[in-house]
């Protein structure tokens, strides 16, 4: 089922991309002074507010700049509780209306808040001078090329998915036993019964079956201890698709330590309760699953999630290194989690897979001052002797990068 789902993901993606592109062109016409930072900052707001959609935890923000004065907004966004406690009637009313869920304080500067407001006014698009100027012909061609490339990548991804599907569907056990039976029968015939006269038939059959048996054994042995396509049922039917894709909650909202620590962090129930204090009914599961979360909160027992991505004990993996220092997207390793209802491990997490990526992924060589220490590489880079600096050139394939 998962596989089918995965294959749909491609076409979905294309549609989304198209809209983003379209949006980018349109937004150029209505832009105000506003920076891409706003989009980043708005990630926090997005957890509870829609710009144009329906009310989430908090009210929809469409037209908010018209409803309220800028001054008031700045105050409220910075510290809503303070405004409420000061007895501001609008604030108190809002608080009452929204089930008394406090809006967290945001330590932002006036400029940043204005920036966000502009972003809201633009309907949640980054201003054109930063996103996309009005398209020229040349740019349109570029766009087209880009879209073509994307389509090509999409096709590639689909092929890969088909491969995965085929692999997953191959019933190794049955094939193995059947092949083994054929092998035994052929050898028996060759030595004893001689039903088939032509001996090369035996030879061919023996060689082919030996090859199949060998391949299965090798693949199985290699997968021993691995969990690719592992997709366990979780104690709570939690959908990343609903949260990350539809509600557009940023990964880091829940997996808070991903940029600071080796582990990305699995959110405690209190994080869930930020929203589910109010949202008691889900799109797919109704109230049943959210009730489990509430129960966990009320009884004080943490939810025992099942770990999907397991590395062996002797492997050291650090999320901060990859996400923060290496600027990798979560997708690179975890796949399109935001498209999955039930999370599945899409990569085999084998050493060969790690190494392959380390050998082709560039480090932030020019932009991160840390790499200044590599004087010789910098020289070669400047001379043009090397075009790119990949992780393995700065020790990414050392044993003690991961094993200690």
């Amino acid at each position, binding site marked *: 089922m998962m596989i089918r789902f995965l294959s749909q993901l491609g076409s979905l993606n294309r549609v989304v991309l198209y809209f983003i592109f379209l949006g980018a062109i349109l937004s150029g016409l209505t832009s105000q002074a506003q920076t891409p930072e706003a989009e980043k900052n708005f990630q926090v707001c997005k957890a509870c507010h829609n710009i144009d959609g329906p009310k989430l935890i908090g009210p929809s923000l469409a037209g908010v700049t018209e409803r309220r004065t800028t001054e008031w907004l700045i105050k409220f966004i910075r510290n809503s509780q303070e405004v409420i406690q000061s007895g501001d009637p609008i604030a108190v009313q809002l608080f009452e209306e929204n089930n008394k869920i406090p809006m967290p304080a945001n330590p932002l500067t006036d400029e940043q808040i204005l920036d966000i407001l502009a972003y809201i006014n633009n309907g949640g698009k980054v201003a054109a001078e930063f996103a996309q100027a009005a398209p020229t012909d040349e740019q349109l061609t570029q766009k087209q090329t880009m879209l073509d490339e994307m389509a090509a990548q999409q096709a590639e991804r689909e092929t890969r998915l088909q491969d995965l599907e085929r692999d997953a569907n191959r019933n190794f056990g049955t094939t193995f036993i059947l092949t083994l039976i054929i092998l035994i029968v052929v050898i028996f015939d*060759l*030595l004893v019964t001689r039903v088939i006269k032509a001996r090369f038939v035996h030879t061919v059959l023996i060689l082919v079956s030996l090859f199949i048996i060998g391949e299965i054994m090798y693949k199985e042995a290699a997968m021993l201890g691995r969990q690719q396509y592992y997709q366990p049922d979780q104690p709570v039917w939690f959908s990343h698709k609903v949260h990350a894709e539809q509600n557009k909650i940023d990964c880091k909202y829940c997996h808070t330590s991903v940029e600071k620590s080796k582990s990305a962090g699995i959110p405690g129930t209190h994080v869930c309760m930020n929203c589910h204090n109010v949202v008691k009914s889900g799109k797919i599961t109704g109230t049943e699953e959210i009730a489990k979360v509430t129960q966990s909160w009320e009884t004080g027992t943490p939810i025992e999630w099942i770990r999907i991505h397991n590395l062996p004990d002797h492997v050291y993996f650090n999320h901060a290194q990859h996400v923060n220092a290496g600027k990798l997207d979560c997708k690179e390793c975890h796949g399109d989690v935001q498209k999955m209802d039930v999370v599945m491990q899409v990569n085999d997490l084998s050493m060969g897979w790690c*190494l392959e990526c380390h050998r082709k992924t560039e480090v932030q060589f020019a932009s991160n001052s840390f790499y200044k220490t590599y004087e010789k590489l910098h020289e070669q880079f400047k001379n043009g002797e090397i075009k790119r600096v990949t992780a393995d050139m700065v020790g990414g*394939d050392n044993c003690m990068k991961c094993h200690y």
Partner: protein
Amino acid sequence: MNKFITAYYNDEEDLLKGIKMMKSNGVEPLDVLTPFPVHGLDKALGLKRSRLTRVAFVGGVVGGLVGFFFQAWVFTKAYPLNFGGKPFFAVPSFMPVTFEMTVLFAAFAMVIAFFVHNKLGPGAKPVIHDERVTDDRFLLVFDIWEKDEKEVSNIQMALTNAGAQGIQLKA
């Protein structure tokens, strides 16, 4: 079904003489079965020198090249690792494995070729003409398939003349 005439000798020198006589009579034996390799039999039968040595040579060359280049590939391309400050392409280190691979491939290529060429192998079902051929008898085998009776009796005559014992006709 094949038909044979077999005849045996008790001594290898008699055998050699007998073969010489038979050949002079224009009768080529299909095969000669002996309990041990008889010196001079090749020459008497006019057997060509075996080409198995060439197979061994080719096997050895392939083995050596595979051994050497596999190591070189592993150390320079697949995953270059620094072992004790040695260069990645460390030719002296590759020699032992290259040598062993050469010998292994040569030996196996040759032996496999030997078995295939001789149609020997596990489960091969030979025609046993005489059980004492692996003990103390030297046997001459003549193929009489597609030979008329006269020719057959000629051979039998010739064999008797050549001092062969126990001449048998097998159908």
